[in-house]
């Protein structure tokens, strides 16, 4: 079966489209998170997503709307991380750890109450982009538009806060508002990335493409564009290879992400790229 044949399947087209949108969303937000040393927020929110999905499944929400139904709880969790980081004497990584543990603990208890692992929950743990629904594709498009518009409108503020939060404050940037926007969008990205890579690999979608782009030592604006390109390329290659070799798409996409990172890292050692 050739690539042309694969692309004729409607579910593959839907998977690639959703994958491209989610890859762009998570990698763009990832640049800000990685540079602000919030890399592990993806992991934390993914674990919270586990708890949220468990609650939603237990409540009997239709599978087509599980992603949408899990969103509010994950968004609340992201705000909890932000609040803990800023208002209490808790470092960002510890705040992520607290919320993450709560999410996992809730998930485990609820799974146990519902008599063991349920197939739906298992699919969320490891993801399956090929099962993406029309609702999820539409949600991805909406979120992509929101993220793109936010980054364009608040680009200077986001850049200033990423560069130095205190300095940004003295420039009149509403840093609290920017942080809330960034964390809420990250929560949405984490829930969507769960569909692509699974709860176990959500943070890879947020961290790996920005890290690869950062190896190129280019300007801030170009770093964002490069991260999105690496992420989209990984999703397209990952989905096609996964389909051809009957591999799990989430894992294959992440392996491509790691491959790009290693390639650029190696190329920097050999070629006269900026260091």
């Amino acid at each position, binding site marked *: 079966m050739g690539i042309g044949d694969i692309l004729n399947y409607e579910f593959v087209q839907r998977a690639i489209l959703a994958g491209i949108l989610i890859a762009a969303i998570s990698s763009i937000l990832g640049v800000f998170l990685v540079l602000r040393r919030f890399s592990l927020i993806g992991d934390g929110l993914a674990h919270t997503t586990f708890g949220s999905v468990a609650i939603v499944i237990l409540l009997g929400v239709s599978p087509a709307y599980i992603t949408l139904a899990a969103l509010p709880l994950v968004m609340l969790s992201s705000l909890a991380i932000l609040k803990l980081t800023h208002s209490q004497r808790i470092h960002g990584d510890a705040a992520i750890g607290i919320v993450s543990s709560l999410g996992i603990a809730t998930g485990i208890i609820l799974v146990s109450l519902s008599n063991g692992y349920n197939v739906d929950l298992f699919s969320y743990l490891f993801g399956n982009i090929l099962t993406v629904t029309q609702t999820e594709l539409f949600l991805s498009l909406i979120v992509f538009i929101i993220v793109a518009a936010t980054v364009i409108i608040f680009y200077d503020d986001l*850049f200033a806060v990423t560069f130095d939060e205190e300095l940004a*404050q003295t420039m009149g940037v509403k840093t609290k508002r920017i942080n809330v926007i960034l964390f809420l969008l990250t929560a949405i990205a984490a829930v969507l990335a769960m569909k692509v890579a699974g709860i176990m690999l959500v943070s890879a979608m947020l961290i790996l493409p920005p890290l690869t782009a950062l190896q190129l030592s280019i300007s801030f604006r*170009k770093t964002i564009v490069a991260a999105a390109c690496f992420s989209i390329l990984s999703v397209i290659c990952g989905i096609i290879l996964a389909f051809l070799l009957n591999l799990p798409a989430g894992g294959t996409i992440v392996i491509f992400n790691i491959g790009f990172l290693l390639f650029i890292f190696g190329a920097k050692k050999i070629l006269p790229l900026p260091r």
Partner: protein
Amino acid sequence: MSMNVISVDNLTFCYSGLEVISDISFAVKKGDYLGIAGPNGSGKSTLIKNILGILQPQKGHVNIFGQPLTSFHQWNRIGYLPQRISALNNHFPSTVEEIVQLGMKKRTPIALKRTLEMMGIAHLAARLIGELSYGEQQRTMLARALISQPDLLIFDEPTTALDPETREIFYSLTDEMNRTNGTTIVLVTHDTGVIGKYACNLLYLDKKVIFSGTFEDFCASPDMAGFFGPVSQHMICHQHDKSGSNI
């Protein structure tokens, strides 16, 4: 009577219940060049962060350009150069041009070019900030603070780790801005010689205000001679005397 650019009234700030600065009051008028000095841990940077709204005081008030800090919005009138930028410690993916532009409300290539040239970093515009020397990074940060032609410049230990030549260029430039454009300057430094040479007023802190007035009054004050000891006072007052440069 010229307007107060900064007015600080009975300001007290505590970390974990411990007073870092206590009952500080002073005013900075338009066109003033105020030097803030004091030993390590005397609360100089804390005071600046309270003035800029980065920290919230437990007691007291700060007014900027006649407005309470809580309702102040004209931040482009203030240029701030902090002691340390966290992002400069690693390879932050940003060019000199991108960072300097952060200080511009409306982006004009002419203003950007002029500021980069004034700071002698036009040739570095496309370089990443992490690739530059400390001196070049400080000049970039200063260019960012200056580009909007602010009415008030606040520098917190701006020349730490700069070589003497770059330090001299920095102070000459800020002195010229103060004298020519009437830019109000607040400078936090350990280097009292610099204050004696450039600033018209001195605020000496040690958690509270020890001295507030002109540098000449400081040097002539018997109270300060009593506080520091006459030898130390003499050394502070005459650091800048020799051939016009500080030690």
